[in-house]
Each structure stands twice: as structure tokens, then as C-alpha cells.
């Protein structure tokens, strides 16, 4: 559930911040080109293919370039969730939440991820709370 929802999420914050809008056509290379565009495409592809370690490496590299991007932290949280590192997944999703002010869709996904990870850790009460938070967004 969490995973299925998250895997198909588009990683760029640009898209996340505009829920419901159509994905933009690929931009002509201009000075405004998102430097992480190519890396993010590779991350999405790796996630779709289930290549978690590859996605993790690319995400860490992208975060070295822009550590303020909430979407990247969310994706890393998701990778950790899929790898079974639930505590780390929760911590990373929370970090993503701190950076995702004004991005309700991303916050919802972070709370869903936190709920899923808490569930997996046997923290059912905590998971309930997180599901509740996910629903608020």
C-alpha cells in the first residue's frame, strides 16, 4: 500500500508542489534547467526497476548537491522502508517533513510511510496516529 503509492511518485518537488497538475513536457535546455533533472530521472527509473541500492547511491549523490530538497529525503526514506530499515525510514521521512512546508501531498506521503514503518515495527498505536496525520493532508 505505502510502497505502491510511493513508488510511482514523481520525485521532483516542482511536481509535488502542484498536485493535480499534468506533468510538464520536458524542458528545452535553458539556463533554468534543473541541475538534478537527469539524476532524478535515473532515480525514478531505479526505483521503478526495484534497484534499491542503485537508487540509494543516486539519492545520496543528489542530496550532496541539494540537501534541502524534501522529495529526495522522502525517496531515501522509501528506499530504507523497502530495505526493511524501518527506524531509518521514519527518521528520513520526518526530515523530509521538516523541509516540505507548503507541500501537503508530500507530507501525506511521508506520514503514510511513517505509518507503514511503525506498523512493521509493531508500533500499532504510533501507526494509527501517523495514518491520522496522513489523512489530514
Amino acid at each position: 500500500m505505502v510502497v505502491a503509492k510511493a513508488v510511482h511518485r514523481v520525485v521532483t518537488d516542482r511536481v509535488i508542489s502542484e498536485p493535480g497538475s499534468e506533468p510538464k513536457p520536458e524542458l528545452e535546455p535553458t539556463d533554468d534547467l534543473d541541475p538534478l533533472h537527469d539524476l532524478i530521472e535515473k532515480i525514478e527509473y531505479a526505483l521503478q526497476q526495484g534497484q534499491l541500492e542503485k537508487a540509494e547511491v543516486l539519492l545520496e549523490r543528489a542530496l550532496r548537491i541539494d540537501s534541502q530538497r524534501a522529495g529526495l529525503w522522502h525517496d531515501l526514506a522509501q528506499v530504507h522502508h523497502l530495505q526493511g530499515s524501518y527506524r531509518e525510514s521514519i527518521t528520513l521521512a520526518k526530515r523530509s517533513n521538516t523541509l516540505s512546508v507548503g507541500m501537503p501531498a508530500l507530507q501525506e506521503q511521508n506520514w503514510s510511510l511513517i505509518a507503514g514503518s511503525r506498523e512493521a515495527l509493531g508500533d500499532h498505536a504510533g501507526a494509527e496516529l501517523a495514518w491520522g496525520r496522513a489523512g489530514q493532508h
Partner: protein
Amino acid sequence: MSPNRKSTSRATKRSARRSTRTRHSATSSLLRRALRLLLFTLLPLSLFYTLWLDFTVRDQFEGRRWELPARVYASPLELYGERAIRPDQIVSSLQQLGYRSRSGSEEEGSYYLSNNRITIHTRPFRFWDGVEPSRELKLSFRDGKISRITDLKSGDGVGVVRLDPLPIGSFYPLHGEDRILVQLDQLPDVLVRTLLTVEDRSFYDHFGISPLGIARALVANLRAGRAVQGGSTLTQQLAKNLFLTRQRTLWRKAREALITLILEFHYQKDEILEAYINEVYFGQDQRRAIHGVGMASHFFFGHDASQLTLAKSALLVGMLKGPSWYNPRKNPKRAMERRNMILDLMAQQGEISESEAAEARRTPLGILERPPSGRSHSPAFLDLVRRQILRDYAKEDLTSEGLQIFTTLDPLVQSAAERGLQQRIRELDRSGKEDLQGAVVVVRPDSGEVEAVVGGRDPRATGFNRAMNAVRQIGSLVKPALFLAALEQPERYTLVTKLRDRPFEVGQGENRWRPRNYDMRSHGDVPLYRALSHSYNISTARLGVELGIGRVANTLKRLGVERDIHRYPSLFLGALELTPLEVAQFYQPIAAGGVRSPLRSIRAVMGRNGEPLNRYPLRVEEVASSKAIALLQWGMEEVVRSGTARYLNTMLAQSIRVAGKTGTTNDLRDSWFAGFSGDRLAVVWMGRDDNKPAGLTGSSGALRAWGRVMSALPLEPLAAIYPEGVTKSWINPDGLKTIYGCSDAREIPFIEGSEPESTVQCGSNG
């Protein structure tokens, strides 16, 4: 003579003859027996020896032929649009990598700077996570940032490019041989042809030993009246280099011949040639021996062997006759003559045309003026790498397995850290301070990656590494742990809770402890944040007593302090000894919102053939409440805004919000500053190795070095966003909540529910 005597004499002669005959027959039988013995023992012995030699040669040739040092690389320079970096910083990084400035060059590893634009022809590089291809790029700049990267071939914009990483050191085997293995098919054909023309023309035709070659050498030597030409084939030279000593004995010659035949019997010519190319000796770089064409190419020209031209190939092959005599750095004229002679020979032999030879002869030697040093530029960082890698690898693996270690060192940050510390120490030297030392550690808080380590005032010195080994009292650097322990209890403490800064005592008799403030005064009731920002000892010690030593020690442990903590009240004021690196670990979760990431210097390790072996991914663990950390960060910002670190406001741009804490120990022995921006945490220590008073406070020593380091780097300000559950209220000097925007009030963060309930008007004192 009497007949008797005659007969006696005859008898004697007969007997003598008989005995001689007997002796002869005894001798010949002995000889026969000896021969038989020789035949039956020596033959098997020599057979056995040959078999043993065969086994040894094959074992070494097929197994781990060479001990290869581990090579350590810095983090690659990532280039992308909007990156804050100046053209001169990129040029300096390119020069460190051995790129040459050349306009319109087709050559990989070259760049050209003009009109605020840089064109770069990058080198390809195999990273542990994939190959970065060679590209021709144009970088444009605007407002101190890269504004656009264009691929010159396609004309398209480029997102992120990483350059090949800077080698920062190696872990050498004891014999000091350094080499980069190359494969025959990676080498330019011209190099191989030059080598064979000069060293062994009939290499592909002989069986290891070339009678024709020997005869040719003999004639040449006789004519010259001295040894001018060797008759050894490449296989013989390889046998000698790989398996034998330099002695010139008949026995060694015999062994050489035997090994040569064994090599030729078992291996293809190309395998032998490849081994030769990787083995040959090209000279000495202090204690490091340069072996193989791959290493020589980097050492002399700064590029891969695959890029060797005709002229460069001739220069290298020419050196084989006498690596020191024909060393192009020491004896450029001699090396040039030898190179040109080889080019003539190539033309005579029809390997190249006259015009090719003439053109190559006109080419300058093209060697790097300064060789890439085998000594590490950052020995202190390399120490950290060694310590961390030895958790997963044996010591011998480091010096023999040819590991490629990709680290987190950022050369731009490292050089800023070295310069910052050196400049401050020089200033203090001039003001009469003696024997000052220092250390710096710079870390990325959100990942725990260590970007720079400086182990002393001379960053190239390989001696005592203070960043990792100077265990010193941390003084007031301990205080954030106390304040965090308090702020994690919002029902008891907020940033404006009044603390009593009036003298008090703990314990009795010898154990009596009476803390004093640095200014020897007491300050009455002070808000908690001011006790932190002004580093008041009395109020902090009182807070510690209220919290309890167990809670404080526990907070320190959670934050990452691994040493034993002595549970005395003096802990509250910093009676705790740590190294600068340990302080960086302790401050990392404070700078990262309460999330601890173990400090790491290695990202990944690759095997000698480029296979990924280990990766060291990001690890995170929540160790403190993010809300309490947000409040603590605000308090530590206050240290810079108006407290003991306010001097930083003269060094850093106002827009860069940073937070930190000064530390000074008894009798001014240690001067500390630990502080962070949104993306970097740096810890600086200054003091003396003999632990005598250095005459510096945290503010007058380490703080200013920290300011120099950080002001030289692009910084992200601390985030202005507070985590959920933190709210801000306007608070007046009496600690009362006021209405919005009162001139005598300021906005202070609270954990929701802990802010004062009632609100007063502006100017009210309650």
C-alpha cells in the same frame, strides 16, 4: 744389485703396478660410482628444481603478480548550474588534477579559461557506481555561480558533471613500488611498436632467448669496446625483474634462462608483453618506486597511458636504458637526445615515416613540471581513512590488493580549513604566542561525511594528528548538552526560564566545588538562553545540579560521546576530555536536528579491477527531540548574535545564519569553537602540545580561525523553518509574552504549550 734384491725389486714393482692397477681400477670405479650417483641424484635434483621453479613462476605469474598499494581519492568535484563556485576555484581544482591549459585542445584532461567561461575536456573515470565518460563542456558563470553547462558536441545543457577525483594518497607496501596496471589493448599501438623496435625486434619470433639478438649485441659491444647493447629479450628482462636479484653470476644467468623458457612455454607473447609493460622500472620519487607504463605516464605526463603519443612513447621507452640517467625532469637535454635517437631508429626501421619522426622531434618533452606527489597532501585525513577502513579490511589488504578507496574529502574545504588555521596561528605567533598548535574538522551534518581534517599547524606534516589524537578538556563546549537536557523537558524549562547566576557550592571538604564565572562576577537571574550565549558558569552549573549528573551524562552519550564520562559536578563546566573529531561527532546531531549520523570518511571501496567491494551508506538515528534541538540551535545562534562569539559578525555576511559555542579551559590551556551553518559543521581547537597555558580564550583563538575557514566557503544559512510543534512568541526583557512586534520584545521559539500563557502590552513589565 743382488739377484735377490732384483727379484725383490721386480716383485715390488709388480706389486706396485698391481697396486697402481688396483688403485686405478678403484679410482675409476669410484669415478663411475660418483658419476652414477651424480646421474641418479643430480638429474632428479635438477628435474625437481626445474619443476619447483616452474611451479613458483606460474604461481607468481598467474596469481597476485604485484602488490598494489591502495589508492585513496577525494570526493570528485561536482559541477552543476547554480553551484556557488568561482572560475578560479575550478581552474585550481583542474590544475591539481593535472589538467593543462590549452585553447582548442582535443586532448582529454585540458581546459581553457577566457572571458569568464571555462571549456573543459574531461577525462573518463570509472567510479564505484558507474563510468563518467569524457566530455567537452563549456561552463558559463553569473553572480559567483555556474549559470549554465553546455555539452560542446551536442550543444545541449548538462545537469550534473563530476570530474575525475583527486588522488590524495596511497597505502604503500614496504618495498615502496607504485604502479597502475594497464592492459595491452588499452595502450596505443605506437607505444608497443616503439618498445619492440628498441628493446626486442624479434619478440614475436623467438622462444625467449634470441641467439641472433645475442650475436648482434656481441658485435655491437666488441665494436664499441664496452657493453653498449644488451642481448636480453623482453622475456629475459621480465624474468630478471620479476624473479631474480641484480647479481651477475653464472648461476643467475642459468636460472634466468630457465625461467625465460618456462614463461615462454606457458604463456602467450601478449601476456608476457603486458607483464613487462607493467613491471618495468622508471625511477624513484623519494621512497616511492615508479613501475610500469601506467604509473610512469601519470607521473611524467599527468594522464593515462592510453593517451601516450609517439613522442611521449619514445621518451618513456628511451628511459628504460637508464631511468635516472635519462630522467626528463633532471636531465631534459639528455632525455630529449635519447628520445630523438629513438624516433630516428623508428623511421630507419620503417615503423614511422620520416615526416612523423620529424614532427615528433619538434614536440617538447611535455612532462609535468611538478610530479603528482606520492606523499599525501592531507595526511591527517588519510589517518582517518586508515582507521575507518581497518574495521573491514586487514592491514595487508591496504598495501597489496590495489583497493581504490573513494572518500568524502572535499579539496576546496580542506584547503580552506588549512589556510584558515595557518593564518590565525601566524597572527598569534606575531603577537608573541609561542608553540601554538591547532586542529580543524569539517563535517556535513546531515550525512556525517567528513569534508576536511587538519591535524596541526603544518597540514603536510605526518607526525602527531591532533584532530584525532589530541585528547583535551572541552570546557564550555559541553554546555549545549546540558541545555538540551533541560529543553527536552518543556514543562520545566524554556529558553526564557530564569536561572540563578549567584555563587553556590556543591559537596564538602576536599570535594567542595564552587563554580565561578569567567569574568569573576555573578549576573543575578538570567534567562536560560543568556546563560548559554554568554557562557555563564554559575547558572549553568546550577542547571546541571537541577538536572542531575546522570541525565547530563546520558544526553552526552546519546549525542555520540563514547568515552567514559566521570560523573562529577565539574562535568557541567567541561571536565571532559575529547579529541576535535569526537567533538565533531558530539555536535553533529545538534547541527542535524537531533539525528545522529556516524562520522564517515569513506563512501565506497573498489577492487583492483574496478569491481565494487564495499559501500558505506548514510546511517541515521534519532537521538534527540527535534523540537528541543530547534530551541537549542536558536540559543546557539544567540551565542553568535550577541554572546561570546559575536566577533563572527565581523567575519561572516549577515545573511549567513550560524550557531556555535566557544570553549575555554582552565588557565587558558585550550581554545575551542564548534559551530555550524545549515550545511557545514566545523570544530577548531587551538592550544599547546605540552598542555601549558596558551593564553587564548575560545573567542580569541579558535573562533577566529573558524571564521576564516567558514567565510572562505559557500554556506547555506541555518534553516528558518522550525519543526512542527515549535511556535514563536514575542517576549520582553522580563520574560513576558507581549503582543506582536513590541519594540522592546523579540521573537523566541517555544515548544508548543510551554510558551507563557498571558500576554502583556508593549512596554509593560507585568
